[in-house]
Structures are given as C-alpha cells and as structure tokens.
C-alpha cells in the first residue's frame, strides 16, 4: 500500500510538470490540444492527491505502525477521531494536506471557468501547476509520508497532547484553506503579467477569490486563538508566537489588498501596487508554512521541526524573483489610467490604510525574524515577544482603527469642507463622550482611550452610513426598520458587508482592549477550605480528585466560585498526564459570562496536599469571538454579491 501512495505522489509530480510544460507550449503555439492536456493533468493531480490522502488515512485509522508517520504521530489508545486528524499533526501529513487543498483549488478553478475559452485561464492554471510541482516534488523526494519502518514498533509514540483538542480538528484545515487559497490570486496576477493582459475584469475575479480565502484565514486565526486560550493555559489567546505571526502577516497584506483593489476597480489606479500586494500575500503565506515547518524559530509549534527549510526558502526566493522580474518587465502595462483629484479623498485614505497594513506586517516580520538576525550579528540569544509587539504593533493598529472610521466617510475623488463637517462632527463628538464615560470605569492611559474613542467613532460612522442609505431610499420604500436594513444591504452587498466586517473588527478591538489592559490575576497554594480572592470573586478549594480518561489520567481540583459573596458555580481545573507523553497538560476551567471570563488553572498539587491555583479575570474576551462571528457574517454578505453576478452572467450563450 505504501508503494501505491508513493507512486501516486510521484505521478502527481509528473502530472504537474506535464501541466506546466504542456500549457506553456499551448500558449506559445496557440494550439488548443496542449492546453486541454494541461488542464486534464491538473485534474489528475487532484485525483492522485486524494488517493494519497485516502491511503495515508487508512494507515492512520488502522494504526499501521509499519508507516513511520503513523508510528510517530498516533498510538493504539488514541481515540479514532484524533487518529483521523493526526493527518495534519506532523510535517509530512501537513504538507500532504497543503497539496490536497492546493489541488482542490486548482480543480475548483478549472471547474469555475470551464466555459471560458480564453487562454488566460490556462495561464492561471499553469501557475497553479507550477506551485504543485514544488509540493508534489517535496512530498515525493524530500519529505514522504509513506516512509516504511524496517521493524515496526509494537505501539506508536502517540499524538502530541496539545493537539488532542476539538479545535485542532478543524483549525488546520480552515487555516490552510485560507493560506493555500492565496495561490489563486497570485496565479491570476502572474498570468496577467505573462500574457500582458490589461483590463479590470480579472481584478474583480481576483477580489472574490481573495475575499474567500481571506475569510477562511481570518476564521482559522481566530480558531487558533481560541485553541490557545483553552488548551495552552496561560490566560491569553494571542501570544505573538512566531506561528501566530506567520498566519497574521498574509491576512494583514490581504486586507490591505482588499481595500486598494477597490481603487483599481473604480479609478484604474495603483495597478503595480495591487499586483505587488497579491504577490506579497502569497509569498507570506508560503513563508508562514516555512516558519511553521522549518523549525528556524522555536515556538509552541516546534514539534513540526525538520529539514525542509532550505527547500521552502529556495522556492520562496524563486517565486519572489519571478514575480518581481515580471512586474518590472511589464511596467508599461501597469501604468495608471487615472489621475488623483485630491489627497484627502477615499482613494487617499485607502493608500494610507495600505501603508499601515504593510507597516504592521513589516513590524511583525521584523520582530519575528529578528532573534535569528540578532544572534547571528551579536552572538547573544534574545527574545522578541509579546512585550515588544504590544509596544510596536499596538500604536500602528490603533492608527489603523482611526483610519477605519475616517476612510468610508470620505467621498471618492475629493472631499469638500461641508462633507467633512457633516461626516466627522457627530462621530468625533460621540467618541469624546465614550471616552468621558469610560474614564470613571478606570480606563486611563493614551492607548485605551484612543481605542475607545476610535471604536465609538467607527461605530457611529457605520450607523450613519446605514442611516443615510435608508434615508436615501425612503421615498421609494416604506416599512419596518429591520426590513429596510435588509433591503439596503441587498442593494449593495459589498459596501454594507464591508461595513459589517468593520463593525466586527471594532468589537474585536474592544475585546482585546478589555482582556489585555484590564486583566486581573491572582495565584497561590490553597489547602482544602481555603479561599483566594480575585476582584469580586472568591475561589474556595473543596478538594482534589484523581481519575482516568481514555488515554490520560487526570488530577482535578474542585473549586467553588463565589461572586460578591454569592455562589455561582463549581469549577474543575485539571492537569492531565497522557500515557505517551511525559509532560503534564493543563485543562483550563472557564467560567464565561458575556462581560468577563473567569479562567482557572491548576498549577499542580504540592507535597503538603495544597493545590496551586492560578486565576485570571479576563474582561470582554467574548467580544473577540463575537467580533469574529460578525466579521464572518459581513464577509459572507460581501461574497454573496458574487453569486448574483454569476446568475446574471449565465443566460449569455
């Protein structure tokens, strides 16, 4: 069976190579035969990859310990669903998942444009196939998941306990759907440059693909944060860990692109810039995979270390060089059609927004890679971690928040004084009011106050945007307010979807503000009956118990929680000892209310029988998750615009 797996990947490599060559030949000669052949080869890669995945899954589920990958990442006592998801627990399997999603995107692309005869789409498929060459090659020759052990061990080494969490079952596939998806916009951009195409039609198509994977990447990042919050047990959800940063960077640049692409669509400007952003987004998502999988930087993901780093770096360098060369070579194609009217305008604000997104990405990139750089230069090992990013990224992000309020109320082309007054006075006024309201609650310091001001400002501009839209349509329609809002959103899904995404982002900002600045902590050893005070809470230890779970034994502290003297709940923070791992794992106890989370960790049981309890109050954490849901909702609305266009397109023969 393992031979079949290896063969299918090898055939996949051959098919990808064939696809690139055949389409290139077809594009050069104009013959349709080679183009068709190349498209079919892309389909074939998808089929072969699915076959490889099925074969590896079969081995994982059967715990076939003759496979090295199975022996390294599963064990016989591992629950079945975790055996299934251990496909992406290690490097080889993760790469296979990458390839699976990549080839699925390739096929989905070919399917979506199957009726288009334009060779432009073949060129796009060729670029996708070129990326497939890299991954199939890597999986065939460098990092094969089908390696066989000469003497199979009686049992495997087990799955990393950190990954034995429901969040880990869906987080990687969703994150990868985002990461990998950026290959399609990249392929579009490269095809435009290769074929010297002008026009803005492709940019609309790219916008939809980008929005799709951008949404998935965002959800993937938030799921990762949620997983870290529940599973890592340090009281927070975002630690500026290299791998977290790696997923944030393509998201940031992708967000910048989604904004500036509007300028290209409406005004035909910033073409070079947009193509650069697309290429950068793709390269950063490759770089993210490189960071996670190369072990260059130690992090919680260091279980994925290996020797594929140089290959990745080589591929990223080649892709970056090719993209840069193409952009420079086709400079004339990318010349702007339009000229600016005024700096203070929607276009201008988008450009500044882009500067901030790229600056935020740069700061993250520099901070993430700097320890390696500094150690190489000075010889001293240093850390660049949360304390750094909180100081550097927070002010840039807050500036971005303020711009989020300003951008959408500036009109296109130029802004008159009366527009400025009409659109800015009320939001600024309410922003100041919000700050004054927040002060007595203990909000001090420039950043928290700027954040509160910005949040109120942005929300007001969004509400005003909706109100104006409804007012403008009032003559045409009357009805209940909710109905009017719905019909307004339907009229311009992209704009109002975008507003809703902004609103979600503001909610996330508030959640981050609350949980980082106003977090409270207490810890201490507790004997039976003793209490720990934390803000309005009193935590009383009622006892410690031990019990057994499928592949782990648990030590659990029973803690009574009182708020303002009233009993609220009994919580069970635990420590788990997995049979295959020496490291004890924290099982956090969470008491969630809309306004705050009580977060309890059992540090351990001491020799004198007391339990070390670590407790946090994390205010407004739920805002982070709710904000994420709002963003997903807004993204779906903006994406649904696409379906309407599709239906309109269809009747044309």
């Amino acid at each position: 069976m393992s031979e079949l797996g290896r063969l299918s990947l090898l055939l996949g490599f051959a098919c990808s190579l064939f696809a690139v060559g055949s389409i290139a030949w077809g594009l050069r000669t104009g013959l349709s035969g080679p183009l068709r052949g190349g498209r079919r080869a892309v389909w074939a890669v998808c089929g072969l990859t699915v076959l490889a995945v099925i074969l590896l899954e079969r081995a994982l589920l059967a715990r076939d310990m003759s496979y090295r990958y199975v022996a390294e990442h599963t064990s016989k006592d591992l629950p079945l669903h975790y055996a299934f998801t251990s496909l992406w627990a290690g490097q080889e399997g993760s790469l296979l998942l990458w390839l699976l999603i990549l080839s699925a995107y390739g096929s989905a692309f070919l399917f979506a444009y199957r009726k288009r005869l334009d060779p432009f789409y073949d060129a796009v498929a060729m670029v996708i196939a070129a990326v497939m060459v890299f991954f199939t090659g890597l999986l065939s020759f460098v990092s094969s998941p089908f390696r066989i052990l000469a003497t199979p061990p009686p049992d495997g080494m087990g799955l990393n306990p950190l990954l034995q969490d429901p969040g880990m079952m869906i987080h990687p596939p969703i994150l990868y759907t985002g990461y990998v998806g950026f290959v399609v916009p990249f392929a579009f951009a490269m095809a435009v440059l290769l074929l010297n195409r002008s026009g803005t039609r492709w940019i609309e198509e790219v916008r939809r693909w980008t929005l799709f994977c951008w949404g998935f990447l965002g959800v993937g990042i938030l799921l990762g944060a949620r997983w870290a919050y529940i599973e890592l047990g340090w009281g927070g959800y975002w630690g500026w860990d290299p791998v977290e940063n790696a997923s944030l960077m393509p998201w940031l640049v992708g967000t910048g692109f989604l904004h500036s692409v509007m300028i290209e669509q409406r005004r035909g400007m910033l073409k070079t810039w947009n193509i650069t952003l697309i290429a950068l987004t793709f390269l950063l998502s490759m770089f993210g995979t490189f960071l996670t999988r190369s072990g260059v930087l130690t992090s919680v993901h260091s279980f994925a270390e290996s020797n594929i780093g140089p290959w990745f770096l080589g591929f990223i360098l080649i892709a970056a060089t090719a993209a840069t060369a193409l952009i420079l070579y086709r400079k004339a194609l990318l010349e702007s059609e339009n000229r600016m009217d005024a700096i203070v305008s929607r276009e201008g604000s988008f450009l500044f927004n882009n500067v901030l997104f790229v600056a935020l990405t740069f700061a993250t990139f520099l901070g993430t890679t700097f320890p390696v750089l500094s150690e190489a230069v000075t010889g001293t090992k240093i850390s660049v971690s949360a304390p750094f990013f909180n100081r550097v990224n927070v002010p840039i992000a807050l500036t971005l928040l303020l711009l989020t309020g300003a951008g959408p109320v500036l009109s296109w082309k130029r802004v008159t004084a009366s527009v400025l007054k009409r659109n800015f006075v009320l939001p600024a006024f309410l922003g100041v009011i919000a700050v004054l309201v927040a002060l007595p609650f203990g909000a001090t310091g420039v950043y928290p106050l700027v954040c509160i001001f910005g949040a109120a400002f942005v929300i007001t501009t969004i509400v005003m945007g909706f109100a104006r839209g409804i007012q403008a349509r009032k003559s045409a329609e009357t009805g209940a307010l909710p109905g009017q809002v719905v019909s307004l959103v339907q009229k311009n899904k992209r704009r109002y979807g975008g507003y809703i995404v902004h609103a979600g982002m503001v909610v996330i900002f508030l959640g981050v503000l609350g949980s980082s600045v106003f977090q409270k902590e207490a810890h201490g050893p507790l004997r039976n009956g003793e209490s720990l005070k934390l803000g309005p809470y009193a935590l009383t230890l009622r006892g410690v118990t031990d019990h057994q779970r499928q592949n782990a034994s648990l030590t659990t502290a029973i803690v009574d929680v009182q708020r303002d003297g009233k009993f609220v709940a009994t919580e069970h923070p635990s420590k788990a000892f997995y049979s295959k791992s020496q490291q004890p794992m924290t099982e956090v106890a969470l008491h969630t209310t809309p306004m705050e989370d009580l977060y309890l960790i059992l540090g351990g049981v001491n020799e004198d029988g007391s339990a070390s309890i670590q407790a946090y109050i994390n205010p407004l954490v739920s805002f982070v998750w709710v904000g994420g849901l709002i963003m997903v909702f807004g993204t779906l609305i903006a994406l649904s615009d696409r379906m309407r266009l599709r239906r309109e397109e269809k009747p044309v023969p």
Partner: protein
Amino acid sequence: MRPLRAPLAFLVLISALLAGSAPLLAKEKDPAQEITSQLICPCSCGEVVSGCICETGMSMKAAVENGIKAGKSKQEIIGALVSQYGEVIRGAPKPEGFNLIVWIAPFAATLLGFAIAWLVLRRMVRRRSELATAAAGAGSPAARGTMPFPAVRGLEEDLDALRARAEKELRQMKQGREA
C-alpha cells in the same frame, strides 16, 4: 477648505501616538505581574512568565515576588534574573546597540511609507490638474469637480476613464507617427 489641515492633523495625531509609546499601556497591574509580564520563560515552553505555570516560570515568579518584598527596584530584579538566565528572558530586547534596529525600523518604515504615499499622491494630483488645464485650454467646457448632482458623479467618473483612454491613444498615435 484649507486642503492641508486635515491630513496634517492626522499626522500630528499619529506622531503623538507613536511618541507616547511604552509606559502608557501599563495599567494598575500589581507590581509583580508588571515585571513578570515583561519576561519570557527560558525553558522550552517559551511563554511570558506571568502566564507560565512550568517549574522555571514559577521559580522566576517567586524570585520577582521576593525581590519586591526585599524592596528592590524593577531594574534590579530584572537585572538579577538576566544575569542568571541570560538576555533571552527579556520579552523585548534592550533598545541598545544592534537591537536598536528592531525598535526604530517599524516606526521609521511607517513614517517613510506615509511620506512616500503623500509624495506619490501629490504628484498624481498635480499631474491631474495639469491635464485639466490642458484640456480647458483646448476648449473643454467641463468645469471639473463641480457637478452638483450625485447622479452625475458616476457619469463624471466614466468621462474620466474615457478621457484618460483618449489621451493614451492620442499619445500612442503620436508615438506611432514619430516612429
């Protein structure tokens, strides 16, 4: 409207934000947590000490608490821990020597980016107004940017696109004739 005022105010605001960097974020956290949240656990967990529950982290927390009880300053406590575990436990590198780069570069890049964006935009605006005057000189009746009705705005944009294309084609024709 004085066109420079709003963006200038914006830039001033940003500079104020950037200038008011580090200490303002700190909140009424207890002194021990204020110190431990700046430190990284040197063992393999690599977490911020305030949220770390591994053995090394717990002993560092205890060292910080003892230091505070003994009346030591924040610098002294951190200094003692750094001499024990190395620079690697600082969550953010000391801003001196080579490591100054990581502190300055992000803000420098932001300001540089703004400056470049500003210059690019200004050049684009200027080129636009040159073209407009050229068009007016050629007898174009369009009074630019003053169309009173919102409905006309889309039309105006279309006109812009057409005009740009016409200009481009004219240029190409001229080049063709010269060639």
